């Protein structure tokens, strides 16, 4: 875990930039996660103080939304779509294959810190199922073979 003291100024800057927006909490949380990769638990107190909320309220919002995370992600985050369209084209097999190849389950990060694996319910790429994203890039018609190639490319071994 990184020392929050190094992150605190980033959090305070983001708070200062967004504080006057109506309904600013989600933009603030996005800003922090965009910058730091996650929302450090220690930041909750600062956010709560700036917005005149209780820490419980801030934590409640963070934990309500699947996208926000309170632990650092791996170097790359892989989202695999679990929704119906992708299921119709073999996403369950892909999901099992990915878990096996990475040696982790959903919401986990590989020991080498390279990959985090997350489920997602629809990427809007249903015309080319099954779909995944690696970081911000979306990939369609991902077979287990194609998945392995993408993994290799992101490991820098190909």
């Amino acid at each position, binding site marked *: 875990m990184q020392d929050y003291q190094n992150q605190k100024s980033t959090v305070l800057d983001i708070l200062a930039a967004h504080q006057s927006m*109506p309904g600013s*909490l*989600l933009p603030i949380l996005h800003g922090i996660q965009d910058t730091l990769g996650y929302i450090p638990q220690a930041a909750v107190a600062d956010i709560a103080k700036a917005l005149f909320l209780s820490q419980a309220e801030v934590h409640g919002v963070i934990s309500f939304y699947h996208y926000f995370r309170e632990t650092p992600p791996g170097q790359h985050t892989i989202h695999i779509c679990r*929704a119906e369209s992708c299921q119709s084209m073999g996403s369950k097999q892909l999901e099992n294959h990915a878990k096996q190849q990475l040696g982790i389950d959903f919401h986990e990060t590989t020991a080498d810190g390279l990959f985090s694996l997350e489920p997602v*319910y629809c990427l*809007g790429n*249903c015309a*080319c199922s099954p779909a995944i994203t690696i970081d911000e890039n979306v990939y369609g018609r991902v077979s287990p073979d194609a998945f392995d190639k993408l993994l290799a490319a992101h490991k820098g071994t190909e």
Partner: protein
Amino acid sequence: MTRLFISRDSTALSLGAEQVVKAVQQQAADKGLDIEIIRNGSRGLFWLEPLLEVETAQGRVAYGPVQADDIAGLLDNGLLDGAQHPLFLGDIEALPYFKNQNRLTFARVGLTDPVNLADYLAHDGYRGLSNALALQPAEIVKHVSDSGLRGRGGAAFPTGIKWNTVMNAPADQKYIVCNADEGDSGTFSDRMIMEGDPFVLIEGMTIAGLAVGATQGYIYLRVEYPHAFIALNQSIESAYQHGYLGENIQNSGKTFHLEVRRGAGAYICGEETSLLESLEGKRGLVRFKPPLPAIVGLFGKPTIVNNVISLASVPIILDKGGEYYRDYGMGRSRGTLPLQLAGNIKHPGLFEAAFGMTLREVLYEYGGGTATGRPIRAVQVGGPLGAYLHEEQFDTPLDYEAFAAISKVLGHGGIVVHDDTVNMADMARYAMEFCVEESCGKCTPCRIGSTRGVEVIDRIIDGIEKDKNTILLRDLCNTMTYGSLCAMGGMTPFPVLSSLNHFPEDFGLTTEKV
């Protein structure tokens, strides 16, 4: 100079469009060819993406699906002159899949540069707003009412009635909120508009603002759509620069501000009151209704909450009049619905058609059957809360009332095809599991009912007291349908019961078929 078109649409990118762009740029530079690449939206014929179009003396000529490796051969073969090639498709608009559509809302998608305001204006953009600026608010609302437009997000509530309510609600501040939390599996029409013609949404929201006296709009965009986020923000910035947003729009003295806010991966935030809570910076808990958001909406003020496609259909209605739009469609379903063909289908894509085609036509004539070549067994229409249809129901016309008559929903127009390898008990279980995952937790039938639903279906699948548990499942579905606060718990029984009724054999039941 020759202009080439390669899409910036997410699905095209997911198939390698970016690599195609790089290959063309590099090889054209090596050969000293004078080209310009326009990053357009997608035409929506996704089995042909990445699609490459070339502007020639004979018009636009398409090639597809093109991979980066194909570029050298294509260029050597006379790509810039629109020469023949195994990937040659000719005029994409002449293909039956495209030609037989009624492209009203999607008129520009795939044709223009989505973030180029001049291109938008050159293709009839902002004509609706220009008309609206000369009208009284009530006249704008009347055009929308006359068009027969109903909410395209799924609930199909008449848009004109909603607008009228907000128009007549006195308040110092009102809001226009665009629901761009397109979470239904099998749907991507909102995304295609936002990536492929974002100005049409901006224009539609601006008109809505004029109609009801709202000066601030928000687009609540799901975080899973990063490319739409970029395209919307580029276009909004350009609209501000050129006086189409902000104070004194086109010297009319009218004001409308617009901002994109990102969601954070909660399906329930597609429910309008949950969305409003989220926009206010809270957990996305569903609100009790009444009061309606039209009276007490965002920050307690009268608010229009409309889906992307509803708002993006407004400019053409204001451009050509409500009657023009109303003349498409059947019965009480007027205008067009952008259908989205997804899942296990040979020709997936977006197909905008007037209401009234049968599902069978869409599935076979245009969709071409399954991608795997196996028979179609079940089709889910209307997202994860939509019912499954079986073969005998494929002749149902795509019309809100015709679907309601057989206890199905059209929803947002998503059509997900499954072949005969699908196990419908698994799909029913998944529907309950999805509800467990995505329930906001406010009401008991949804929060607890879905968990119990997974357990009961598991027992049926495992052969434990099948008959008793089937009765229990039906009873539970009844409680969820009538006891839930919103459509999340209220409609989860649709996929569950349609699976059970149409495919009892998958549950190991023989006598259930309804």
